[in-house]
């Protein structure tokens, strides 16, 4: 019977799901469950050889506790140093039927997972604490049920209260600056509980020491079984950050205001010459919003040639790191409008002192440029007129001098001459000189008239009719020289001109053509008109001697310049014609080929009075 009992007990023990071992007072294992053997990795054959004091030698006070006959539990490792599991074991004394202690019952549970979790929680707590200290982010927790408010050490530090301080909700809210901050946090906290809406807000508190501080307060309701049980939140000191941000914003505001209101076009470009900043003036000039301009290159905005030059300048600045200062440039936009600028390009460096782009500043100097041009034109005009005046003065002085010199010389001869025939000859010469002087004075007078009579009115004149009229006056002269005149002028063409000048111009050009006719050909003069760029041009062509323009080109319209051995040549007609045409705002040009003929082109100016 006894044997059977023992076997039953033995089987019972072996099948226990919980690892259980029975040991004698000497520590030797008497029996154990299969689960226990598996847990400790002991083959069932060698069960009797295992002594618990050896097996658990690392557990402090095991013998003493067993000797004290107490039930107690302990945690211990099982396995090698590198590979082990955590066990929780309970030792209870083992009594026989007579209540004598015969050994111990030890039951072990694998608690590795729990142990790891606890370690993890410890670790997380420590991380949280460190993080909170390092980042100046504190946290708080409010228990809805008990109305307990917990502040972590960092939160207390931010409030500048001692670590022993125990806050309540009212106190906590009263730390917020009265007004916006306090009202806001009250509302947010209330809403977090009532509506479960999380919050995250920058607000100001006044610390225990009376300092105003920017903080960031965040909170979130924690819900359990459909009830808000807690509100958890963070509390961060962002004072320095906000102050720095405020400072940056103020600086930025100052800079933006400054840049935008400068009467200059300002832009910043990156290394690829893309615009990364533009000011108001630049936007207004390009007629685009900043958004439309950012990221654009000059090729997107300007005429290709201009863009190319600008890009080359950019590259030069980026390469040499030397600024271009006050360079005169011309920008031509896509629509063709050109603007003169005084442009500076300055290399831009990043915080590592590496070039990151360039700053461009352009001043619109179109109006200055225009005034400069006007001034230059005026100076040119004045200097041309001045030259003309000096030239005229020289002509006058030279012509009058040559006559007066002749008078002086002849009179000297006359004084010294006794021979009557010779005296008569000298007096004839004097008469001749006097006639020459008169003619010269008349000629000069005509020129002076043209340049002083600027009030003569232009009238609409039919060129064709006028040619007929002049031709009529020259009939005898033309017939004598057997001249053929081809008047091919548009019969309806009317120009605005001073009638007397028109007469003089046509008459001089006709007589000039006849004077320089070729002895080998009958003179033919052709008159034509054409319109070029709204200007009317009257051309008078002949088949005469022609002039070597390469040789005399600039002198042909000069006074008393003749280029042929011709008795009628006086060298005054063309000078007069040019003065008359120029007085009316027009001009005269000449084409000629020696021994072929000459063409004079008279340009009428329709615009000026």
């Amino acid at each position, binding site marked *: 019977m006894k044997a059977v009992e023992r076997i039953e007990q033995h089987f019972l023990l072996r099948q226990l799901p919980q690892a259980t071992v029975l040991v004698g007072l000497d520590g030797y294992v008497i029996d154990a469950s299969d689960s226990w053997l598996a847990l400790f990795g002991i083959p069932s054959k060698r069960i009797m050889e295992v002594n618990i004091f050896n097996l658990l030698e690392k557990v402090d006070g095991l013998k003493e506790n067993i000797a004290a006959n107490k039930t107690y539990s302990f945690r211990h490792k099982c396995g090698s140093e590198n590979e082990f599991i955590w066990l929780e074991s309970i030792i209870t004394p083992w009594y026989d039927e007579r209540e004598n202690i015969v050994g111990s019952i030890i039951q072990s549970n694998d608690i590795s997972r729990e142990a790891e979790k606890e370690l993890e929680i410890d670790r997380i707590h420590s991380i949280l604490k460190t993080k909170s200290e390092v980042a100046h982010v504190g946290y708080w927790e409010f228990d809805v049920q008990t109305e307990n408010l917990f502040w972590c050490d960092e939160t207390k530090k931010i409030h500048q209260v001692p670590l022993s301080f125990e806050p309540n909700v009212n106190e906590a809210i009263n730390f917020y600056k009265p007004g916006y901050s306090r009202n806001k946090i009250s509302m947010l906290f209330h809403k977090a509980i009532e509506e479960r809406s999380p919050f995250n807000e920058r607000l100001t508190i006044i610390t225990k020491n009376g300092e105003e501080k920017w903080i960031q307060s965040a909170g979130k309701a924690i819900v359990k079984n459909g009830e808000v049980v807690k509100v958890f939140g963070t509390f961060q000191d962002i004072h320095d950050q906000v102050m720095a941000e405020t400072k940056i914003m103020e600086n930025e505001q100052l800079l933006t205001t400054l840049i935008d209101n400068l009467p200059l076009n300002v832009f910043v470009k990156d290394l690829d010459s893309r615009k990364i900043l533009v000011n108001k003036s630049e936007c207004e000039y390009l007629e685009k919003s900043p958004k439309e301009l950012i990221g654009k290159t000059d090729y997107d905005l300007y005429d290709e040639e201009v863009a190319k030059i600008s890009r080359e300048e950019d590259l030069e600045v980026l390469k040499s790191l030397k600024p271009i200062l006050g360079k005169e440039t011309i920008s031509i936009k896509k629509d063709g409008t050109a603007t003169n600028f005084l442009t500076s390009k300055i290399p831009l460096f990043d915080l590592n002192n590496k070039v990151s782009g360039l700053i461009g500043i352009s001043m619109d100097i179109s109006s200055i440029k225009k005034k400069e041009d006007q001034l230059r034109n005026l100076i040119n005009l004045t200097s041309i007129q001045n030259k003309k005046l000096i030239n005229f003065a*020289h002509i006058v*002085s*030279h012509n009058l*001098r*040559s006559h*007066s*010199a*002749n008078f*002086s*010389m*002849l009179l*000297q*001869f006359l004084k010294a001459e006794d021979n009557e025939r010779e005296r008569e000859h000298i007096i004839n*010469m004097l008469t*001749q*000189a006097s006639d020459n002087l008169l003619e010269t004075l008349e000629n000069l007078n005509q020129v002076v008239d043209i340049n002083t009579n600027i009030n003569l009115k232009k009238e609409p004149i039919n060129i064709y009719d006028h040619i007929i009229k002049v031709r009529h006056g020259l009939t005898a002269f033309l017939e004598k020289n057997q001249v053929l005149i081809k008047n091919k002028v548009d019969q309806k063409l009317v120009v605005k001109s001073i009638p007397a000048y028109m007469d003089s111009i046509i008459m001089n050009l006709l007589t000039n053509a006849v004077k320089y006719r070729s002895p080998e050909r009958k003179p033919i003069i052709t008159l034509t008109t054409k319109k070029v760029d709204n200007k009317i041009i009257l051309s008078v062509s002949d088949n005469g001697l022609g002039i070597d323009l390469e040789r005399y080109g600039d002198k042909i319209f000069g006074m*008393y*310049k*003749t*280029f*042929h*051995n011709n008795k009628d*040549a006086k*060298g005054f007609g063309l000078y007069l014609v040019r003065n008359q045409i120029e007085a009316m705002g027009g001009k005269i040009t000449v084409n000629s080929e020696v021994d072929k003929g000459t063409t004079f082109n008279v340009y009428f100016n329709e615009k000026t009075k």
Partner: protein
Amino acid sequence: MKKLSSIFIVDDDPITVFGIKRMLKPVAICDDIQIFQNGKEAFDALSERHTSGKEIPAVIFLDINMPIMDGWDFLKEMIDLDIHERVIINMITSSIDPSDYQRWNDFKERCPHQLNFKNKPIFKIEVSDLDGFHMAS
């Protein structure tokens, strides 16, 4: 009285030509006085004489302002002829334009001949105007 083999007068003003001829009478004996109305005529004659080895004029009276070829153009062409004889050239003008005087100065530097500048009116021709070798006296 100086004896001269040949004289050119180049001027388009008949009164001046008359005056020069008259003023020459008391100071020079010359059987060959040629008158030209402009530089071109004078140059053609001079060039012909030079190439055919005829007498080169000893003295030339030269006006500046003339048609076709003026006094300056004549001078330029004459220098290019490379005449070995030293000719006395009297430029006679009524011009008081300083630029004419300046031009005369420039020409004097590079002209192998003797170049005088005379402003009108002139009343007398000096023997020195006909004699190139002032330094010999």
